[in-house]
């Protein structure tokens, strides 16, 4: 087994644990590269099907290409898609910096969906290498009734034994991609031939490295127009993946505050 085989086997194990232990369960599908890999891994785990719904928490501000992609692959992959809205920005904590405040809409939209579908488990595609705060996460991360992440009081997690407290108002965020790096995601996309929104590929010398809302995501300078070229580019780049995400950079603790409040 090479490193991708090992990452794949581990993710499949995690997805099968989640499916066995958490009901009802749903997977967040943000339409980005990581969540497409995640849907793909679910199909590997469950032999070609995704036996739980996927959720798109729609900020209404995604790129039109993303909406088209969503509709096409919901059909092709036979996904059960749950859609959720986000509240207007005026309803969000005004002490957050502007881009973080905008991003926090998604947290609120997600909370509404978790309550609506009484979800016990939510599978999310975050990775440790994306952002320092995410490096502290558990594979099974329990969230209390206000969906807050209690970073200082996380359960022990080792030897692939995951905490599954069945308590009133607690749901579990499941993170099957936690150990993957950005380049692993791309190498796996290349190996498996996983489809992506073409915003990831260079047009007129620019491409998106990470996709969020249109108004708080910016493209990078790049000529990488194929998956192979993106991989080659990543092997030499020294800038971080989320450099184009405005909310990470507004203040030293903006992203951590978002995450403690339940952001992905």
């Amino acid at each position, binding site marked *: *087994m*090479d*490193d*991708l*085989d*090992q*990452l*794949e*086997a*581990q993710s499949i*194990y995690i997805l*099968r*644990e989640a*499916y*066995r232990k958490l009901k009802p369960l749903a997977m967040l599908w943000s339409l980005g590269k990581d969540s497409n890999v995640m849907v793909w891994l679910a*199909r*590997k*785990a*469950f*032999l*070609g*099907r995704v036996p739980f719904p996927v959720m798109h928490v729609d900020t209404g501000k995604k790129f039109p290409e993303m909406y088209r992609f969503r509709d096409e692959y919901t059909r092709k992959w036979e996904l059960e898609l749950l859609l959720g809205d986000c509240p207007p920005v005026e309803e969000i904590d005004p002490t957050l910096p502007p881009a973080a405040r905008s991003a926090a809409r998604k947290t609120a939209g997600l909370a509404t969906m978790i309550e609506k579908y009484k979800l016990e488990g939510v599978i999310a595609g975050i990775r*440790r*290498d994306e952002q*320092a*705060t995410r*490096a*502290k996460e*558990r594979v099974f991360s329990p969230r209390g009734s206000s969906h807050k992440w209690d*970073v*200082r009081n*996380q*359960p*022990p*997690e*080792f*030897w*692939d*034994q995951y*905490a*599954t*407290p*069945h*308590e009133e108002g607690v749901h579990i965020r499941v993170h099957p991609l936690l*150990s993957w*790096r950005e380049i692993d995601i791309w*190498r796996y996309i*290349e*190996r*498996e031939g996983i489809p992506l929104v073409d915003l990831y590929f260079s047009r007129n010398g620019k491409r998106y490295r990470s996709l969020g809302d249109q108004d708080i995501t910016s493209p990078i300078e790049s000529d990488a127009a194929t998956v*192979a070229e993106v*991989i080659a580019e990543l*092997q030499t780049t*020294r*800038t*971080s993946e989320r*450099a184009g995400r405005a909310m990470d950079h507004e203040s*030293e*603790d903006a992203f*951590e505050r978002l995450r403690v409040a339940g952001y992905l």
Partner: protein
Amino acid sequence: MSNDILRQDAATPIVIVGHVDHGKSTLIGRLLHDTDNLPEGRVAQIIESSRKRGLKVEWSFLLDSLQIERDQGVTVDSTRIPFLLGNRQFVIVDAPGHRQFLRNMITGAADAEAAVLVVDAAEGAQEQTRRHAMLLRLIGIRHVIVLMNKVDLLDYDEQKIAASEQSVAELLKQLEIEPSLFIPASAREGDNIASRSPQMAWYKGPTLTEALALVPSPAGRADLPLRLPVQDVYRFDSKRVVAGRIERGRITVGDTLVIGTHGTTARVASIESWHTAPQISAVAGQSVAITLEPDVIPDRGDLLHRPEEAPIRTARIRSRLFWLRQEPLRVGESFRLRLATAEHQVTIASIDSVVRLDDLTEHASDHVPPEGFAEITLAASESILFDAFTPGTTDGRGVLVDRHQRIVGGAPLIGPADIASGTKAIHPTDSTVSLWDRAQARGHRGGVFWMTGLPGAGKSTIARAAESRLFGQKIDVSVLDGDTLRAGLCADLGFSEADRTENVRRAAAVARILAETGQVVLVALISPRAADRELARQVVGEGFHEIFVDADQATCEARDPKGLYQAARAGRITGFTGIDAPYDTPASPDLHLPTGTGSVGEVADRLAAYVADSVVLAEGTRRRS
């Protein structure tokens, strides 16, 4: 796209441990920087953060990326940092030094292949140096590199450093840890981290990066006897597939496997997958889905193995333990032992020795303190199949979880326990007729449905009505009713708290015996205390269902079928549940049966349907005649 980009070895996890302030975070920051592993933004971030705080460049800020950590000045949780050395991938696990965070450390360190133990050369081994070294031994890390840090404070002096090394070596020897290497270094100054120190020409050994490059890749587990714990069983389309990850060994289509607790055998008919080349074999580490012929249905937790390579089978296990709960552990406490995908009910039969961390010696004790290390004996309610834990394997090590599914301890298993002289040597004999055989013959499993509720809630009435419905469905069912038990088996018991507990224990023990012969048992017993019902759950083990027969007190009192409420109100009987004795409402019963509305028939239908759903085997699993 060249092949070498797509094919790489898996990352080698390295854990970095040591006493608080001995320089772990600084070491990691320095290591990442000197080996060119930092993204552009990070160095600027460190410089900026250090500048804001009026410090010179603090490498540890790289890790202390959470606000709360910087405020406190300690790393609160483990972090995994990918790290590339030449073409080889590592993952650095940073474990915190602050003593109350053992559980975070174990979270990071449990799967490491090698460890770097950082010791302040000027200060020598400290309390957490010992604690962490102990943990390295317990989780079976084979390669330990000792980094003697801050040697600049000893003026890079060979003699002084050697003396400090000597004391650490003695400590490790006590733990039977043989370190691969001692490296004199200064993380802050960069001496002997990624480049050779000009200050220590006398040192001829490898630098830290050279030492890491020498750590062997994780050893293959493919050549060991097959162990495939069943994770789940799916029925997709018309096919039934058994899913699980191979922990040791390999499987090939056509292999004959023994199905753990069933003891029956089946042949691997196929290895199923989606979007991969067809497979006829698979090895340790792979998550597989297989079909079996004949199409028997294993349960989650069943260990699949080859007939001639059976694991250890015993109900008493000796184990090492690291204890993570904030309260001490005492003999007699019960937990679930999670072992790969299996869960077993276990009781702490004895605490055989506890490690004193001041000098790492073993002592007798009646408890294991929070964050303590011990050797214990576990007694299970049934035989457990397992392998002793050896370093480099992923199974043979369990975790203890409490009834809230919280992990409270880690237990690398040693082997079967001998019965010590003087203990009650009870050897229940196992029946040669397996539970599975019985279930197949009957078409249903045994089970215990524990019906609790206030007097007059309708427990016995509903139990009897459900009994006749289930009997009509050819289910072998019986009712254990509180009054019947008290008339015979429990005639010697009164209504004191101790007697009520004993009443529950006896009822549970009888129910268990019946359930083990394959019967479905409906127990109708007030069992007012949550603790007593928990005891019943533990006595029964697998197949226990708590059913809350729920009617409010006013309704029960109005019904008063036996005139007991009236008697209690008149003071003729005391200690009556609901009047002058408490009833603990079940917090999360397996089935909630309100009886305030609806007819007895409707409620009994619900109960019967729930019971049938729990015990009846799916079509196709009955023995073919």
